[in-house]
């Protein structure tokens, strides 16, 4: 029995007294996720809805189970999903759509393509950050960093996320491709991960190999670790992520730029999209996060003036 062919939603959205949102985040112990949820919750409250956090603690399979169970429990009208593994949750999300739940895909694409914001599961709404665009933007910031000091040749080190994650690899490929196209010299490309400690290790090794590196790109956590290692060196940092600490670092001129997203606001926006759909309003299915605060994602010192990050790290 092919469940995919069983037509569209079986239940029609019905305006209810109180809408309920289930939020499936990466992990509760992740401050980015926590801030997103804070946005979701805030917006829900403002519209008389409630929100609940399902914590899979980065476990993709646990998240699949949580989505299934939430469908079964019939307690929710809206799902906001940050998928730990965009491919694995597809069937569960499909069943949610069929159950008439308004599903908003938040931050990471749901499905297998990393170069589009179009919904990859019919009936869902996306509010995502396209990984390849993210990579290209990081490259753009790095190019600007080189230009700011008129460095030529400009030595760039790219701290990748996790080599095992296709999403990270798609971003890396996009970034590296763009850098090469712009004629930049990539002197190191190592796994920097998403913790200060992994960034620190990576940077120690980068400095051994390329002591003259000019620009370092990486996740904001990895950059924080890297900065501590390279104390005193005139290195320009480009961080992926817009935490309070990151924004401060850019504003203080310690880091050159950050790929900034207003995380909490984006949480609220996701809740808004979901509630709108659940209440029968017309909603655009494909949405880019970078469109919510246009231009701000290329967060150099000037751009981020007056901005405060929306989560701690």
């Amino acid at each position: 029995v092919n469940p995919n062919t069983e037509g569209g939603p079986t239940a029609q959205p019905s305006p209810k007294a109180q809408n309920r949102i289930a939020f499936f985040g990466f992990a509760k112990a992740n401050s980015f996720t926590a801030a997103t949820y804070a946005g979701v919750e805030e917006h829900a409250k403002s519209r008389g809805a409630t929100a609940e956090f399902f914590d899979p603690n980065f476990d993709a399979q646990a998240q699949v189970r949580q989505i299934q169970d939430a469908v079964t429990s019939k307690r929710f009208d809206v799902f906001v999903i940050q998928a730990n593994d965009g491919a694995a949750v597809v069937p569960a999300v499909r069943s949610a759509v069929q159950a008439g739940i308004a599903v908003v895909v938040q931050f990471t694409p749901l499905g297998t393509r990393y170069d589009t914001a179009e919904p990859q599961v019919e009936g869902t709404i996306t509010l995502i950050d396209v990984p390849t665009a993210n990579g290209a933007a990081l490259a753009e910031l790095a190019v600007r960093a080189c230009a700011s000091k008129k460095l030529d040749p400009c030595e760039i080190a790219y701290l990748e996320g996790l080599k095992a994650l296709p999403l990270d690899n798609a971003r890396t490929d996009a970034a590296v491709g763009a850098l090469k196209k712009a004629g930049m010299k990539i002197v190191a490309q190592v796994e920097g991960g998403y913790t200060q400690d992994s960034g620190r290790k990576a940077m120690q090794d980068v400095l051994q190999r390329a002591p003259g590196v000019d620009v370092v790109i990486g996740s904001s956590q990895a950059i924080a670790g890297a900065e501590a290692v390279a104390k005193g060196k005139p290195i320009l940092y480009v961080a992926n992520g817009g935490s309070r600490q990151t924004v401060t670092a850019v504003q203080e001129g310690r880091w050159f730029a950050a790929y900034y997203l207003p995380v909490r606001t984006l949480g609220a926006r996701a809740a808004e999209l979901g509630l709108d759909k659940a209440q029968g309003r017309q909603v655009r299915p494909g949405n880019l996060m970078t469109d919510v605060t246009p231009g701000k994602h290329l967060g150099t010192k000037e751009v981020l003036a007056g901005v405060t990050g929306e989560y701690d790290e």
Partner: protein
Amino acid sequence: MRVRDSGILLALFVLVVALSLATQTFLTQGNLVNLLDQAVIVGLLTCGITLCMICGVFDLSASAVLAVSAVVGVLAARGGGVALGFGAAVLTGALLGALNGAAVVLLRVHSFIVTLALSIVYRGLALVITAGAIVYPDPARLTEFQSLSWPTALGGVTVPSLLLLAVSAVTSLVLWRTTLGRRVYAVGGNPEAARLSGIRVGPVRIVVFTISGVCAALAGLVLAARGGSAQASMGTLLELSAIAAAVIGGTSILGGEGAIWRGMIGVLILTLIGNGFNLLGWDTTYRPIVEGLLILAAVGTDYALRHREE
């Protein structure tokens, strides 16, 4: 099975009754079908890993084998059709499993470290094969490929659930009713005694690793069919859940003792705890605490009951 062996069944029973009383949704057909479906991946791995543990070895590479098999399966399906893909995946699992076994036997280092090291190698292999990207079957064949994950006419019970039932039945039968099963228990219980009795310890170990590899490959196929794709990071660390499930059920990590049904009970308990939390709508912040304590309570009860008379 003696009554005092069944402490863990009691724990499962208590959990089921508690959930049936506390929610209206637990005992619905839909939820039970889901529960079974959720148990499949860890369940399949647990079948193989239980076999390994009874034989006195650890298979810490199961989830890595899962990933490689799934990736190979998807790529082969792209090249030569879905049947070929499934076959290639199972064969890959068997080969890698046999490789695990051969390495453990030849190096004579503890299986714990051998399979841990090999799991790193296998993940690397998957990464190299996929070049770090997601791989998909041919779009034209996607539906056929995904059919492995569909519900069946049997009350909506999914194909993977039936697969798990079949695999656990077969492995149980192997353990209980065949001389291979006897050898597995003997080798796990006292390899030296087994060797002195003319049992070829090495080949028996290679066989259990191979079976575990096949189980992992099947789990990989189910995951790939569900998601319609495969990638190198699939199922990371699932072998830990599987080992936990086996041990919760009462299979000894010292070898020579245990049963497939015990592992299945363990998987069900783990699945139920998560399901319960989700259905009850409790704050998931407290879930790990409750989950950990429930596991302790379950294994504690089981132990206390089994050893009451000793």
